[in-house]
């Protein structure tokens, strides 16, 4: 019978290959048997604490073995895993906990402030598991140590039974506009997407994935689930800032897959020994990129720098789609370099007009996706849910078109469109031109309020070095863009604000402009 629950992936791999290494982190190597046992014990502990199906358990941990054990343990107990960024500010954390009303929270040292400030913890919380702390005490009590929690009896497999339609996880979007929204994903959503991904990437138990993206971000979650599903190995490295340590570990561990967002690759190309390790990555079968549009210039350079046997998968998705919607087959990438590809198995992506009618090839509209991976809705926000989900599927907010071969192209985001002096302008096109100058690490084009034009285009650009002047960049734009698309100003800055996933935080960039 096909597995229907997310944690069944772990259980099935642990039964098939108990001694295989599931996770590698900071010198620790954890087998499938060990990981599954820890998750089952945590599930046993959760049931002892009275956790019921559908209860939310917040996971405030950085990537590591305990994160994975917590995630699968919560699911085994029939509860809902809500991973949050460990660096969430007090105010946002308070608001999220308030709307989630979780039954329990699993925190690490970095979340220690939470323990000290009990006023943040809503009354729904019956326990906290502090993973770096040993907290002796008599019952009833609130705080438990990790080792103590794992002394519980293992929950027998299947004991926390819930339906495949039940909620498995709530993942918060980075909230490029407005407040972050909690995307509700069912077991069915995640399981179906995991299957599609393992299928098109042809993942097997021989795959070893280097993970530098956070697990609380949907793409990181997907890397974990897909590799656990096939019985592969996940190598966790939380030191991406030190790119040489990541590349070195990829060579040492014989990593077969690496995944990143556009800025991940921009950094690797700019400041890492990737090129010099070209001959030392014989196992690197593929690299994947998702998490937003990656400039053509970076794709081209990446194709030159990666070892010749390494395939590059350009992909597209959304938290609301449990991660993935489309990909470009690496064989067709050179001719479809600007494309996000075609829908993954089991998913349909159509280009619709504002009335919900499908548009012909070449015509620009909104990308609307349907399939078993599309979210149940936003947590506690039926209005926001109704704005994006309807009979046609999930309205991605991305604008684009399909070519005659059925390949999709994203031209920009609906909510990033800027109205400048009567023209509707998509900043992505201008960003692409600026990046093609080859002198920038990254760039963002924003609209600043302007009494005359409505919005005035301003580019924030991070030079690669050698400091190109704003005049040179502007004249580069002049040669390639119509006048109304040329930024009124280009400001050279040291860095662009980003989300922990590595995606550019446009709202904070705008705030930088003053």
């Amino acid at each position: 019978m096909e597995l229907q629950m997310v944690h069944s992936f772990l259980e099935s791999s642990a039964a098939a290959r108990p001694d295989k290494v599931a996770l590698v982190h900071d010198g620790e190597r954890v087998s499938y048997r060990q990981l599954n046992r820890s998750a089952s014990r945590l599930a046993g502990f959760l049931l002892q604490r009275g956790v019921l199906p559908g209860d939310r358990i917040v996971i405030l941990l950085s990537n590591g073995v305990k994160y994975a054990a917590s995630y699968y343990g919560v699911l085994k107990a029939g509860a809902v895993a809500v991973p949050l960024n460990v660096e969430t500010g007090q105010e946002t954390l308070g608001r999220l906990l308030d709307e989630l009303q979780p039954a329990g929270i699993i925190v690490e040292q970095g979340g220690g402030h939470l323990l000290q400030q009990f006023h943040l913890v809503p009354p729904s919380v019956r326990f906290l598991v502090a993973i770096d702390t040993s907290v002796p005490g008599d019952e009833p009590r609130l705080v438990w140590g990790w080792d103590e929690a794992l002394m519980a009896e293992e929950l027998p497999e299947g004991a926390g039974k819930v339906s495949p339609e039940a909620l498995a996880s709530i993942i918060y979007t980075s909230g490029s506009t407005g407040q972050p929204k909690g995307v509700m994903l069912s077991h069915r959503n995640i399981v179906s997407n995991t299957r599609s991904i393992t299928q098109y990437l042809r993942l097997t138990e021989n795959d070893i994935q280097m993970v530098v993206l956070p697990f609380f971000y949907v793409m990181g979650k997907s890397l974990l689930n897909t590799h656990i599903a096939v019985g592969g190995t996940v190598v966790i490295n939380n030191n991406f800032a030190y790119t040489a340590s990541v590349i070195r570990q990829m060579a040492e561990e014989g990593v077969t897959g690496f995944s990143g967002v556009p800025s991940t690759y921009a950094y690797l190309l700019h400041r890492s020994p990737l090129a010099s390790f070209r001959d030392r990555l014989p196992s690197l079968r593929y690299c994947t990129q998702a998490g937003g549009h990656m400039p053509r210039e970076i794709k081209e350079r990446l194709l030159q720098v990666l070892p010749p046997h390494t395939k590059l998968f350009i992909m597209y998705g959304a938290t609301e789609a449990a991660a993935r919607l489309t990909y470009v087959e690496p064989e067709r990438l050179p001719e479809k370099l600007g494309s996000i590809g075609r829908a993954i198995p089991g998913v349909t992506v159509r280009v619709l007009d504002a009335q919900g009618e499908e548009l012909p090839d070449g015509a620009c509209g909104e990308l609307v996706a349907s399939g078993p991976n599309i979210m149940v809705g936003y947590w506690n926000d039926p209005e926001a849910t109704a704005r994006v989900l309807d009979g046609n599927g999930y309205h991605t907010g991305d604008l684009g078109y399909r070519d005659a071969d059925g390949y999709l192209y994203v031209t920009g985001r609906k909510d990033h469109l800027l109205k400048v002096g009567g023209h509707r302008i998509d900043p992505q096109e201008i960003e692409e031109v600026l990046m093609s100058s080859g002198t920038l690490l990254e760039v963002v084009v924003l609209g600043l309020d302007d009494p005359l034009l409505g919005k005035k285009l301003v580019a924030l650009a991070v030079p690669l070095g050698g400091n190109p002047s704003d005049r040179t960049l502007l004249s580069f734009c002049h040669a390639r863009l119509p006048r109304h698309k040329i930024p009124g100003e280009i400001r050279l800055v040291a860095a662009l604000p980003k989300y922990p996933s590595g995606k550019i935080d446009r709202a904070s960039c705008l705030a930088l402009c003053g």
Partner: protein
Amino acid sequence: MNVKDEIRSFVVENFLFGDAGELTDDSSFIREGIVDSTGILQLVAYLQEHYQVAVTDEELIPENLDSVQRVAAFVEGKRSGVPCADSEG
């Protein structure tokens, strides 16, 4: 100011908005969320410019750069010609 103090003030000014808070010479920049990957690039650019030392791609490892203490030792090693750790291990 010695090298360690200079690096410390660079980190405090650029990444902690002037508030040294609980930053010690051994605080891990990454684990304690003080500096992100963009910040490491800024730090390296500062070292190259201010101390006129070359930092190779292979030297971008936590052993060289992940605390005030380590950065100071890295810079001092460079200036005195002592070989630094690189990704060859």
